[in-house]
């Protein structure tokens, strides 16, 4: 019995590895070959994640998680994105994880974003970890007026590496960019860190709305290209895209 189950486990692990390799290859040529059979052996998490990507109500359904220290503005970014509102003054503290959805359209494709807004506090980590594995994209926030929140980004990236899927899209966001003189983290510092970990980066402001839409649309776009793989997907790169877009249109006329 023991021997048997052990054997089975080994087989499963190896099949999973093979699949992972295959997925990577597939990205460039998925359109032509339907590799359904192989996929059945993927572990349940990966399968669920893949299935959800092909949600039928919309063309694509992707799961986005907002991460970062408590008080960096995760909920505010989300409120700005979803409802176009900015909640000034009162501090709303998230309890556990909050779940919201919004549909955006990317090049005539409807993309449904399922957004997990997590509580930054340490005591909620065990709950949030459970949902890392499902995520297709992670928006990792720090507060440009709060150096500690920036210093903790490395720890967050460590957690991400431990709990999230390898191919997850990560975007680093320096929030509260409207702060003016209170700034404690330079834009270049954020850029440098992002380069070091090769993740996309931009500065945002939930208050002015700067780059908020762009952050979500960029991950949606990236995942859409990965999903379809029709156009040469190597050509699309979030980091380049973000760079282009942020240079094109700078902060809308809004400050104070």
């Amino acid at each position, binding site marked *: 019995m023991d021997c048997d189950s052990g054997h089975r486990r080994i087989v499963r692990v190896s099949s999973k590895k093979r699949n992972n390799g295959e997925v990577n290859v597939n990205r460039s040529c998925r359109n032509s070959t339907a590799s359904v059979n192989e996929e059945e052996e993927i572990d349940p998490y990966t399968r669920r994640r893949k299935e959800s990507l092909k949600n039928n109500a919309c063309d694509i359904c992707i799961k986005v998680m907002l991460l970062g220290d408590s008080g960096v503005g995760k909920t505010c970014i989300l409120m700005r994105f979803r409802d176009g509102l900015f909640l000034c003054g009162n501090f709303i503290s998230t309890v556990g994880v909050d*779940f919201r959805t919004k549909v955006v359209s990317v090049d005539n494709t409807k993309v449904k974003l399922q957004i997990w807004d997590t509580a930054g506090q340490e005591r909620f980590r065990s709950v949030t970890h459970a949902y890392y594995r499902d995520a297709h994209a992670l928006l990792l926030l720090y507060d440009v007026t709060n150096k500690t929140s920036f210093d903790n980004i490395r720890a967050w990236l460590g957690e991400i590496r431990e709990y999230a899927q390898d191919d997850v899209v990560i975007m680093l966001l320096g929030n509260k960019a409207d702060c003016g003189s209170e700034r404690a983290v330079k834009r270049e510092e954020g850029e440098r860190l992002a380069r070091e970990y090769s993740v996309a980066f931009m500065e945002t402001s939930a208050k002015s709305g700067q780059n908020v839409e762009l952050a979500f649309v960029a991950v949606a776009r990236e995942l859409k290209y990965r999903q379809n793989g029709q156009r040469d997907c190597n050509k699309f790169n979030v980091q380049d895209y973000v760079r282009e877009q942020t240079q094109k249109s700078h902060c809308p006329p809004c400050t104070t």
Partner: protein
Amino acid sequence: MSSNVELEPGVTPESGLVTTDSFDNLGQMGSSLEEIKSASAVSQSQESNESNSHYDEFDESPNCMETTAKEDADLEEYKEWANKKNHVFVLSLAGKPIYSRHGNEDKLAWLFGVMQTLVSFVQSNDDCITSIQAGDTVFIFLVKRPLIMVAVSKTQDCIYQLISQLNYVFNQITSMLTLTRLNRIYEQRQNYDLRRLLSGVERLIDHLLDFSEMEPSFFLGAVQCLSLATSIRDSISSTIVSACSKIKNLVFAILLADNKLITLVRMKKYYLHPADLHLIFNLVQASESLKNSESWTPLCLPHFDPSGFLYGHVSYLSEDCQACLLLLTVERDIFFTLSEAKQRIVEKLRRGNCLQAINESLNAKEDTCANAGFTELRHYLYKCKSTAQFYQPSLSPPYVLSKQRLIDLYKRAYQRLHCTTRPLKLLFERSSDEVILAWDTKGFELYIIFEPLIDTTSAISLVTKLLNWIKKKEERLFHLTSPTFLK
């Protein structure tokens, strides 16, 4: 007064709420998350370190801050702080500040040091400090390992009520971390700064303290239900039961609105303690973030099981019906299952016009005494002991603008009935402002405020009339059934 009390409105053979007068015993319910998990044959190894911590020595000396009263502004601030009527402090056994109701804990480090010294000094003689009375100020100490809770009060609140308040604060902290984790933290590091784990919880505690001072439910140890026709309440309950019939390990489903309970569905064998329900009410009221989304949150109910978390799917029914639904389970990762169940519940409730009924009840408010035909009554509280539920009418003048005064009247009356030295069965007290009658029977407690000029005989006949009125309406005012999930 005639003591024939066969009339006990709101009595029901079974209640989903535990009824108990002794509030402070943790773990008395003996329900356990483990039991629920194992009962449904889900064997998951879960940590359950129950070892108790021992603190005999405190080598850590509290770091005193210099109190240089350098500026007038500081002094003003200090005076204002010192004049607050009620202070609550939480510290670790090692004297580390954790929470202060007013002011900044860091600036008060010296004071926490004094408190810790007092506690440990008395402890060194194998004794335990409970309270100090100094003029009109009372200092209450409650040592609940691994924390020390202190209340300093200039209000007329009795010691029992202050202790109960401190217990609530302790339970609020436990509900965020679990007692097991709390103990483990301090076993590993006696001088741990718990604020690290409690960031954000201070607002919950603030709210809880304000809440507990203004709501009769806290000192009564009961909850109020939203008035609803029986048929509606039953159909809400059965909707929840049927929508969740296939979900394993769902322990409680709680629907509440405006600080009132609409329904409570529970797993067979398990009951909810009113004090746990108060923590849930507090969480829902104090958390703005729950309003616009579905949340998934860990929550420990200290009276239910202080050692582990339940996981809650928390959401408001819909934009047009601000009732909050909590589905509490022992499973950590069934958010989507519960999310779908919630959708089913809302759809079915909408079709059955239940959402509308809830809204109507929310908008209509309760009757005032005068509306119900009791012109000589100003306000009353009726608590049914066996169901741990109570009813109160809407506020009417002169208390609309001075609710605090009304609550204080009730608290004092409650204290007279429940003080340990000389508890009363019946209290009738006349002052120039009002007459208060408080009556404690086997089945219920009744507190009534009359107009000041009412004579005794008509007061007594009004009591009977009122009990009859409540009896007639009991099905609307109370949650008389105790629905359970299908096994």
